[in-house]
């Protein structure tokens, strides 16, 4: 029974990875799934480690467990002297203690390789095609860009994986999201993923694992693919996947924890079988033409509140059912009037970072728009690289100068304003053009207003002082985006 596929005939990529990791299958379809990589951060793990301690259990596979503090680490330079906030300090100290006591791989706060867990995993070569990857964090979906089955879990499950290196799972359904053709200039991976959520809604992927495919996805870099998969969860899906290809192998090759020599060759030959077979069954299919995708922004307090930048703020009556009341509440919270042009929305702040858009290509793209320009008067800007290595690379390329000259704060790596657990927060009523992934009420600080968009769109909004079509900014003075 061990590892036997349940299905004969054509299988999806998800089917293949799932089947390859089944340790035990019950008659009712409940499976014990082997976990290849377990990522751990400071907020959702303390009780899980404590559970092990109380029961005298060990971490079954410390070599497959990777810990890094990211959610509430400060991003200011003075963090080398310690964390001021007592609760944040205690949580980080606890991770420190647990990582050392249980012997898991660990990147402490002041290690150059520290960063957002979903950026560190791929960067260090922990995330590889065909793997199962879990973390007590919903944006674990990011790792699906490598053709790995990756999803978030709760604290009890964190403890379960620590102790047994397995997870109790039932199979999800298969959903295919195809982006055909090519993107137009100024349109990015972030616009793809937001456009998909705009079309399917935040519950569109519920109960499903999404596989993103099509020419526009193939054309994306690995970093762009990570941006797309990152937000599968905002579309309601447990995980997002993209079949590995030459770009994937190229990205992985030579990373510290990627296989080498004969193991590399063996891995490669397996990885090349990781694609959805012709004729595989899909429970749901969504197709979007790449040419139809415009630079988008969110106007409300749900990631599905997406509109092309040329649009106008909708009215509650434009919606149906429960969404009418939700839209009314959103507009009120966001301080917007129906019918106003999106490009008339003024911003007070720009946040560039997060596990969605905190990688080097994101910083290059934003810097490309900002080079030789300055934030509009009264607008504050913050750039938070996704990892210490991203930060170092950016400094080698002189991107830090571009940001600083444009009036931005150049920070150390962490989650930062994306969830405002550390001191990086929006003030009540403050409006932010953000490259992160959630625009919920209070997400970036109590009363703060978030508009989600791509790094180039956020940079452009900062210069203009209001939401703006990046293509117009680029047309004025061409820059290398």
């Amino acid at each position, binding site marked *: 029974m*061990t*590892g036997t596929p349940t299905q004969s005939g054509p299988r999806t990529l998800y089917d293949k990875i799932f089947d390859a990791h089944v*340790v*035990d299958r019950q008659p009712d379809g409940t499976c*014990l799934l*082997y976990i*290849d990589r377990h990522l751990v951060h400071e907020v959702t793990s*303390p*009780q899980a480690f*404590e*559970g092990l301690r*109380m*029961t005298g*259990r060990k971490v*079954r596979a410390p070599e*497959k467990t990777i810990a890094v503090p990211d959610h509430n680490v400060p991003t200011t330079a003075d963090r080398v002297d310690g964390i001021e906030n007592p*609760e944040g300090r*205690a*949580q980080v100290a*606890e991770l420190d203690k647990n990582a050392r006591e249980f012997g898991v791989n660990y990147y402490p706060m002041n290690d150059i390789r520290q960063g957002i867990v979903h950026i560190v995993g791929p960067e260090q070569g922990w995330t*590889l095609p065909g*793997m199962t990857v879990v973390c007590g964090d919903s944006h674990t979906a990011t790792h699906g860009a490598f053709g790995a089955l990756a999803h978030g879990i709760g*604290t*009890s499950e964190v*403890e*379960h994986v620590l*102790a*047994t*290196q*397995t997870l*109790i799972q039932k199979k999800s359904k298969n959903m295919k999201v195809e982006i055909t053709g090519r993107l137009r200039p100024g349109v990015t991976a972030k616009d793809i993923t937001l456009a998909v959520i705009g079309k399917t809604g935040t519950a569109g992927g519920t109960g499903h694992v999404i596989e993103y495919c099509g020419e526009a996805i193939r054309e994306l870099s690995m970093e762009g693919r990570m941006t797309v998969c990152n937000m599968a969860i905002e579309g309601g899906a447990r995980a997002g996947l993209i079949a590995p290809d030459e770009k994937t192998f190229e990205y992985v090759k030579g990373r510290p924890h*990627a*296989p080498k020599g004969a*193991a*590399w060759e*063996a*891995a490669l030959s*397996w990885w090349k079988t990781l694609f959805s077979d012709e004729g595989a069954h899909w429970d749901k299919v969504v197709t979007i033409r790449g040419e139809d995708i415009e630079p988008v922004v969110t106007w409300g307090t749900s990631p599905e509140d997406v509109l092309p930048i040329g649009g106008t703020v909708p009215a509650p009556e434009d919606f149906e059912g429960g969404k009418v009341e939700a839209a009314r509440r959103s507009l009120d919270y966001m301080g917007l009037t129906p019918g106003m042009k999106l490009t008339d929305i003024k911003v007070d702040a720009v946040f560039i970072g997060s596990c969605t858009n905190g990688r080097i290509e994101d910083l290059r793209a934003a810097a490309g728009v900002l080079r030789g320009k300055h934030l509009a008067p009264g607008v504050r800007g913050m750039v938070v690289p996704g990892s210490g290595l991203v930060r170092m690379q950016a400094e080698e390329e002189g991107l830090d100068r571009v940001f600083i000259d444009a009036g931005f704060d150049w920070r150390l790596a962490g989650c930062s304003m994306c969830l405002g657990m550390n001191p990086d927060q929006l003030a009540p009523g403050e409006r932010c053009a953000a490259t992160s992934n959630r625009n919920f009420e209070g997400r970036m600080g109590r009363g703060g207003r978030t508009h989600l968009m791509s790094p180039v769109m956020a940079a452009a909004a900062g210069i203009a002082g209001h939401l703006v079509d990046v293509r117009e900014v680029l047309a004025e003075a061409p820059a290398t985006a």
Partner: protein
Amino acid sequence: MDKFTTLTGIAAPMPLVNIDTDMIIPKQFLKTIHRSGLGKNLFDEMRYFPDGTENPDFVLNKPAWRDSQIIVAGDNFGCGSSREHAPWALLDYGIRAVISTSFADIFYNNCFKNGILPIVLPAEAVEALMKDAENGANARLTVDLESQTVTGADGTAYHFDIDPHRKHCLLNGLDDIGLTMEKAPAIEAYETRIAQSQPWV
């Protein structure tokens, strides 16, 4: 998770209905990094005055009930949020069983994950046991999970129902992790196979 077989102990009477999870453990204690240590804040707002001193009228502050291991409570115990901190706080204080006519769903489930036995009995039985509980250390109750009975101070035994799988897990101290660990040979076999075929994992 600790096994639950039999328990003889002092029961605290809490006749209040709808004791919710906010009363059991108020929200300001959720920022903790621990599952243990919550016992001192169990029923915090009922147990302490705003200045932090003990409210002598609260049952667990009275000498006869300080060492309670059982709570006999009014209807619908544990309603409110899903916080697993509620059973964590009870357990940390030393409570291993709660008796009521009804429990909130999520709280009921969370108890089993933490080795606490929630016991549902008819109103008359809860009333009789509540009377016993009011006698504090002079009227210990005995809970026997194997025979599914609660025995009062006068020797009257009350039978309760429980899902067989949950009973099995609690009797043997098995949580999900414990159950999965019974499958260790299968996990090991998988790991051996993968070490051969995918040594890079």
